[in-house]
């Protein structure tokens, strides 16, 4: 242990250091280089994102969206239910809830309500946060999707969505009896490629949300049928269509009616309008 003593001894310690070739200058050089490099990388990264967003707009063939007529909505929640049965949603996952609030005091009270799907925002804050690009905005029609085969289930996107549109699939089941087939019905999302619903297999353990019933699109990207909620709505409150097509029902409604979007001030530009 003689050498130990040496190292511990103040003087020889100094020797060791003065011999060391890296000087303060070099330390500054090293750290400076590393920091500068990453700074440049992070700035160029942020700007490239904005360029990408611009490019995205020019490639669009459709801009699918909704105009939800609040005068016609009767709060029956058929949209919520039909969506659940269309996508075979497990407990704890919801795509299109009807949000309610009670206003006023007796006797002057009323409830206010509106269905709330994912808004497929034009500038979706949920997309850039995904570490693996599992969730992205489709170039051709602007629908924001989550690839269940890529999602690692970190749930970062849930925190980033300002509209609470995303839920995590915890793998819950309706029927306690494990063997019951109902628990394993495959969801039609992504063309049903995920197959039978089983533990350890996507979509369990991933984040899920409304995708405007993407599975009802044909190869050209046109809808063969209305999304489940719009189709079921008994008051005909949910209008679905292409905002890029000036002749579509939603475009006309937008021109004729007084509409709002939620949290407009954020600039996320939801593709779902509420007609008042």
């Amino acid at each position, binding site marked *: 242990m003689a050498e130990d003593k040496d*190292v511990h001894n103040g003087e020889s310690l100094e020797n060791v250091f003065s011999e060391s070739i890296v000087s303060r200058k070099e330390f500054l050089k090293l750290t400076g280089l590393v920091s500068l490099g990453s700074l440049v990388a992070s700035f160029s990264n942020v700007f490239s994102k904005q360029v990408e967003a611009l490019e995205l707009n020019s490639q669009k063939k459709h801009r699918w969206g909704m105009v939800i007529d609040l005068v016609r909505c009767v709060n029956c929640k058929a949209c*919520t239910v039909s969506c659940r049965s269309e996508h075979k949603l497990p407990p704890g996952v919801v795509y299109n809830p009807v949000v309610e609030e009670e206003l006023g005091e007796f006797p002057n009270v009323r409830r206010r309500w509106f269905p709330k799907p994912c808004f497929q925002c034009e500038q979706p804050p949920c997309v850039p*946060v995904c570490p693996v690009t599992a969730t992205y905005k489709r170039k051709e029609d602007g629908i924001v999707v989550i690839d269940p085969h890529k999602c*690692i289930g970190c749930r970062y996107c849930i925190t980033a969505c300002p509209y*609470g549109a995303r839920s995590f699939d915890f793998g819950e089941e309706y029927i306690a009896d494990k063997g019951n087939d109902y628990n394993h019905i495959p969801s039609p999302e992504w063309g049903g490629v995920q197959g039978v619903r089983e533990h350890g297999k996507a979509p369990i353990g991933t984040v899920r949300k409304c995708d405007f019933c993407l599975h009802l699109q044909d190869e050209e990207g046109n809808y063969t049928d209305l999304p489940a909620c719009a189709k079921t709505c008994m008051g005909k409150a949910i209008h679905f269509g292409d905002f890029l097509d000036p002749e579509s029902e939603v475009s006309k409604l937008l021109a004729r009616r007084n509409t709002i979007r939620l949290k407009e001030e954020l600039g996320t530009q939801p593709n779902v309008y509420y007609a008042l």
Partner: protein
Amino acid sequence: MKKFFWVTLVIGLGIGLIGVYERLTTEHLQANYGSIIPWGLWVALYIYFVGLSAGAFLISSLVYVFQIKKFEPLGKLSVFVALVTLFMALIFIWFDLGHMERAWRVLLTPNFHSMMAWMVWLYTIYFLVLICEAYFLLRSDFLKMGGMWKIFSLGFGSQSSEGIARDRKYVRILGSIGVPLAIMFHGGVGALFGVVSARPYWHSGLYPIIFLISALASGGALITFIFIFIQKDKEKYSELIQSLGQLVLYFLAVDILFNISEILVGLYGAIPHHIEPFLTVMKGPFWWVFWVVQLCVGMMIPVLLLSYPKTKKNISFVFTAVLCVLVGFIGVRLNIVIPALASEEIKGLVEAYRSARFSTYYFPSLMEWLVSVFIISLGIFVFTLGLKFLPLQTKERI
């Protein structure tokens, strides 16, 4: 005492394993987080341990990069602590993933618009730098220990004083790279929260800085705690321990300053929805985490103990103070993650869909606690083994 320590550790590992088993077989079913509060105890502990790691590493850089001789006895210890705490943090976040087997995707198909991808890349590089640094730091000792230990030197290095000096040089280069890395990656963890503008509670430019300062405070506290705990001849190092205590005090003071700014600016903002998380912290169901754990235990007691002239020179008081910091910072981390999430994004969402997963109330489930106990016990176990067998305290054996 020793026996008690080992028995507790084994019990911790044992009951923790039950939680791990539950987590692996039933996935997230038994966890209490949901879709309103998607992150819980594990994420809070992840940032806690990752902070300890960055802090411990920066303390080690005082020795190897900035060459402050007084801290020399802490050098190897700090590097090892940084490694072990990082290892614990990574296990925490790994267990938190919905698909653990897909973790590689962040490395191979990263999206660099995401702070999370940045963070993962940075801590991977940081991890490698740490391992290399530990290798160069210890390889001459491994050779000296002879026998099987020689394997760890991988056949390189020498025991001569030139060899040691050369190793020191490498350590210094690695340390110099490691310093900005540790700053970036822990600042990045802060930025991971800071960039989420949907949560006004997080969305602040101060966040990365607060993360760094609190990492230094808590990391410094951990090193002090461990150093006092394992040191047999405490009196010999009493001066070193005192200055460590003062270091922790300074970091803590800056941290408190930033926190006050963050909270006051938040509270005086007149938009009720933005203030809500702050009120949840102070008046919510877990008000005591803020007032008792975070404020009293984590900040006031240690500041008093470390600044009062009589107590700051007393090793047992310094020990108490840093222990308080360590406990208090768990509260700090919990209060970063959960309150920001514990409010509805759209009013009425919780009533609109009735499910335990759609709740603004969160308390960790038994499974979450057990897994945490397991990971912490595992970390302590690995650390104790390292302490026993690795040449971390060369000085002692003179």
